[in-house]
């Protein structure tokens, strides 16, 4: 049994490692799809901490994604030096801070906002919390849309461009890398970066789940009053959940900004938050493989459906636009999956029970 697991694990690892090389053969667009799928996995894993473990329904999660992205954008693009003479004087070569500074800054700011949002909402439960987080997401988006005056901080609806690509020890992710005659384009490099981050996040999530903190979160999720009675500091733990979830979002946001090279408030609409919640719930709330599956399915499905929708489109005589059909199929898939598998595609096996296989 144990050996079988290892074999499956190794096969999966090998598959994930060569996946972009294969996809590359079909064109870089396919690798991009995989990149975005990984980015969404990262987001879904972060939201899973808040929604899945601590049971706090957050409908404004994309705000943290946005905060991370804007933080990266501000610190690694010409935007600030163009608009503020003082900063231009301080950094004559332009503001291009190293990632070792920028990414922690993004994560930290997002975590700060996570706690900031968490603090006033501690007494709220269930759907009151949902609407407040939703409102928070909208507030952040509106500010990003309008903070181009009186002081131009976010450049408003036009968004920020020319954001630096990441670079690690002199290896720029923005350019094609030549490894022993083998060409790895930028998208593939980002794939590996995101994959590393995802693996890292899975490990963190997994460790959290079985830790004291994770068990406390689940106790809060199941019954807050009982958890409190057991001596759990619900206030601090809820704030921690918000902060942790937000950190994931912030890092994912920074990755998104560097990967795209351009950000605008449009990318951070309410629908994104709703999609991330859908990924978590559709996959199997609180269950890591399920959450990953949900994120991959919902983010890759629209792209794959592009190829299904085109023939359907010609069948209907071009009356139906491919993008409309796609949207239709996604909606139907969401409804159908939930009706057939109400607990998600791959739900956690031991729901509501204490964890059986904990090796302390």
């Amino acid at each position, binding site marked *: 049994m144990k050996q079988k697991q290892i074999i499956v694990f190794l096969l999966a690892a090998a598959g994930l490692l060569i996946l972009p090389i294969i996809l590359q053969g079909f064109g870089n667009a396919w690798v991009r799809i995989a990149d975005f799928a990984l980015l969404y996995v990262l987001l879904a894993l972060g939201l899973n901490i808040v*929604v899945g473990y601590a*049971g*706090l*329904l957050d409908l404004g999660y994309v705000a943290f994604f946005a905060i991370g992205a804007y933080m990266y954008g501000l610190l690694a693009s010409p935007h600030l030096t163009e608009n503020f003479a003082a900063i231009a004087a301080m950094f004559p070569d332009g503001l291009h801070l190293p990632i070792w500074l920028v990414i922690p800054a993004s994560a930290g700011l997002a975590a700060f906002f996570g706690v900031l949002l968490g603090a*006033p*909402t501690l*007494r*709220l*439960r*269930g*759907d*009151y*919390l*949902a*609407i*407040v987080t*939703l*409102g*928070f997401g*909208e*507030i952040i988006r*509106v*500010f990003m*849309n*309008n903070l181009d*005056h*009186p002081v131009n901080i976010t450049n408003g609806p036009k968004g920020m461009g020319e954001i630096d690509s990441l670079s690690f020890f002199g290896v720029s992710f923005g350019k094609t890398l030549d490894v022993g005659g083998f060409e790895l384009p930028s998208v593939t490099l980002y794939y590996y970066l995101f994959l590393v981050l995802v693996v890292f996040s899975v490990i963190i999530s997994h460790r959290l789940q079985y830790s004291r903190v994770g068990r406390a979160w689940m106790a809060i*999720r199941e*019954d*807050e*009053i009982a958890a409190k009675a057991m001596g759990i500091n619900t206030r601090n733990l809820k704030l921690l959940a918000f902060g942790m979830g937000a950190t994931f979002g912030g890092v994912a946001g920074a990755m998104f900004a560097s990967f795209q090279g351009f950000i605008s408030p449009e990318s951070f609409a*309410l629908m994104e938050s*709703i999609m991330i*919640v*859908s990924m978590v*719930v*559709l996959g199997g*709330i609180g269950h890591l493989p399920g959450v990953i599956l949900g994120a991959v399915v919902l983010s890759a499905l629209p792209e794959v459906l592009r190829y299904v929708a085109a023939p359907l489109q010609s069948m209907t005589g071009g009356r*139906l636009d491919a993008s*409309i059909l796609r*949207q*239709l199929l*996604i*909606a*139907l*898939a*969401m*409804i159908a999956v*939930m*009706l057939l598998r*109400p*607990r998600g595609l791959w739900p956690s096996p031991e729901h509501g029970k204490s964890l059986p296989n904990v090796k302390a």
Partner: protein
Amino acid sequence: MDIFLQQIINGLVLGSMYALVALGYTMVYGIIGLINFAHGEVLMVGALTSWTIIGWMQEAMPGAPGWLILLVSLVIACVVAAALNFTIEKLAYRPLRNSPRLAPLITAIGMSILLQTLAMIIWKPNYKPFPNLLPSVPYEVAGAVITLTQIMILGMTAMSLAILMWLVNYTRLGRAMRATAENPRVAALMGVKPDLVISATFIIGAMLAAIAGIMWAANYGTVQHTMGFLPGLKAFTAAVFGGIGNLAGAVVGGIALGIIESLGAGYIGPLTGGVLGSHYSDIFAFIVLIIVLTLRPSGLLGERVADRA
């Protein structure tokens, strides 16, 4: 012209539309504890249906008076919306009644996307002008201007609310609804049929949403397949603001939200010396909401919050 009074009137009109939609949210929430994300889309379908009916009627009987056309289209839109919401509940929410709490939320989101897409296919994605069927003579009240459409909105809202209050408080169905909201299992033991009550709730909610949709269209003069999103979102906010599950709370929350928004939009510019413009009016509501909920976690009129977090 008195700006303050004018903003209050605008706010009342806006708020009464929010209130109608918020009632639908709050009734559904009170009974089955579900945020019906597709509610805004029901509003949109109601508005687009009435737009189609008005178009037909104007062609078929050119001489018909505007109010008659509006009334007929309103009735038909209500029926269509009710049938739609009834079907949605039956297909997407009923099978999930005993599932984890978030499962129906996802089908609701799916339904919302589905309805928007279908509406886009049926009615095409462009903005359509909603004809002005009532004479657009402005009336002057103490320095502020109010149009006939706005008067109609206030009147229709008051009437709908009166009927709803009567229905909930003085009829058998209303009693059954209140009983089911209180405790579905005990209500069932007392001979109430929960399925019937839930269906009735969705039908009533849909009718209110359709009325609000037509009012919205008449007030803003356009209809489109995405028009349900904003009123849906704001009305949901209003329902929570007033204390979700509480009918009076939805009305108070809706009207309060409308007035806050319109006052905010009217005064934020001059007060901050033009630094913050009326773009921020959309988040005004949310900021007030967060403040109110921090002080009163169960909303303005909310009593105890059921422990289902």
